[in-house]
């Protein structure tokens, strides 16, 4: 078997919490406590678990938004946890993140064109504005948006359209690994379905590898090849999608699956 694109070993991310005031009692919160997994080229691995289990922290650590306490994460043969920010910078194009609210960290006064052009210029993928506009138009169409949307501003778009634009901003860089953290959970049911289909289609067409972080078991089944179930900072079970959903081995996985409200129950 080929070497995985990403191989995470014994990853730990601890936070120190507590005020450290009068009592001077600082404690350590072990948000991620020794987890290992790998993702191959073109593969979608889901990280599923309940609130506070540490799944977002995994994604944030892999993109250097948090600092790892211990462990390694080999990406294409290099340990990305032990790189300086300067060393990590060229990898930013390869490892991209899709967030629940794609515009949370962006200046709302920028037009869609400006938002999408920025990473293109940072990574020197285009020479000039007209080349950027061409690429932006093509990518917007890829995510099901009118190319003319680039002249508009974020507040003019609905939640679903905003997430499409967020996805465009990631895909325009042709990354090798996409980390998607609850990309549809803020959207309405009918819009979730559109965006899930879109993510699945783009992943297939581009062959990008993906870490899909979600608490939504339906979305996870729809998107993934393999699934890792996380509970209190650790992985309790990792396996092929069908194995996890049809023959779960760990009691917590079974509890999670048993808790899903069923649509059929009431049918006579």
């Amino acid at each position, binding site marked *: 078997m080929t070497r995985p694109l990403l191989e995470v070993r014994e990853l730990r991310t601890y936070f120190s919490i507590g005020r450290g005031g009068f009592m001077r009692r600082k404690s350590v919160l072990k948000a991620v406590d020794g987890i290992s997994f790998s993702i191959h080229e073109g593969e979608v691995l889901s990280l599923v678990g309940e609130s506070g289990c540490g799944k977002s922290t995994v994604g944030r650590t892999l993109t250097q938004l948090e600092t790892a306490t211990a462990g390694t994460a080999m990406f294409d043969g290099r340990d990305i946890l032990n790189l300086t920010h300067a060393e990590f910078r060229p990898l930013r194009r390869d490892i991209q993140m899709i967030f629940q609210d794609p515009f949370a960290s962006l200046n709302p006064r920028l037009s869609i064109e400006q938002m999408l052009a920025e990473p293109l210029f940072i990574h020197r993928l285009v020479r000039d504005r007209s080349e950027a506009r061409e690429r932006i138009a093509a990518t917007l169409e890829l995510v099901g948006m009118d190319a003319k949307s680039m002249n508009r501003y974020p507040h003019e778009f609905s939640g679903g359209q905003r997430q499409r634009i967020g996805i465009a901003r990631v895909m325009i860089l042709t990354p090798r690994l996409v980390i998607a953290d609850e990309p549809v959970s803020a959207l309405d*049911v009918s819009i979730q379905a559109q965006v899930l289909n879109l993510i699945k289609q783009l992943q297939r067409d581009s062959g990008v590898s993906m870490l899909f972080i979600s608490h939504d078991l*339906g979305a996870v089944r729809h998107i993934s090849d393999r699934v890792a179930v996380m509970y209190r900072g650790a992985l309790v079970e990792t396996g092929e999608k069908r194995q996890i959903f049809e023959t779960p081995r760990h009691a917590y996985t079974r509890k999670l699956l048993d808790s899903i409200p069923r649509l059929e129950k009431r049918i006579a």
Partner: protein
Amino acid sequence: MALLDIRNLDLRIARGSELLPVVQGVSFAVEENETLGIVGESGCGKSLTALAIMGLLEGSAVRIAGGSVHFQGRDLLTLSPEERRRVMGDQMAMIFQEPMTSLNPVYRVGDQIREAILQHRSMSRRQAHDRALDLLELVRIPDPVRRIDSFPHQMSGGQRQRVMIAMALACDPKLLIADEPTTALDVTVQKEVLELMRGLQTRTGMSIVLISHDLGVISETCDKVAVMYRGRIVEQASTSTLFSNMSHPYTLGLLGSIPATDHDVEWLDAIPGRVPTLDEAVPGCAFHPRCFAAKGSCRTVDPGAAAVSPAHFVRCHFPQGSSS
């Protein structure tokens, strides 16, 4: 006679000089000991309907433009606020999605439950305290004697929602309106809270109106269902009828949008487009721009509600799968 009987409820929202319709011709009834589910996407009018029943729209931008809300035989909409309070008394209670915003962070949960009790019942503080303990036990908060002194932030989301339910039950309401009560909770906790609500209903015989965007939650918990789209009930039936004979294209679209967890589907049957905003007028059927079954008349004529079978109402010119 139904406990709650709503006919042709019309709500309008003031936008500048205009009054835009947000809830139109909504009718449903809830019997004693029955659970009605209202399902639909954000902005479809679920919560406003609930607030109208509770009389909580006063002072907001929303006006009641028509219809009736009969509770135990009296039309609440024709009563003055004082009369309304007397008729409603402590017989209706409501819980919301995010318990943290409805609990006061600076008071201990026990004090808040006790206040809720004392608002409606005259009894000593000691008695109210004991009643609060009973209620915490009823909603299965572990170790209530200690937990009664906790502050809201010291509890988990599931525990806070249990405290909210305890407060709502403080005066044995006949009707509980629960607006997305489990949406902020994890699935395993959601299951416990829904089971708790069902168990309490069995014990007390109260009626429940459960509002949710989650068809799964609705199908597991409710006796009957009203599906709302853009301010109207587009399909209404008993839960078993709805799921065995789904007729409205929107209901079908909602079902097709939900990724299954028990089998693999290559592509979800997503509904195209998006919900029009309030100020976008849509002629004819409000769903026609997104509907796979739309034909000529759908673009011009707004369909009325019609029975496709007894007690199964659909607002559509071309109901699906109905063997006429």
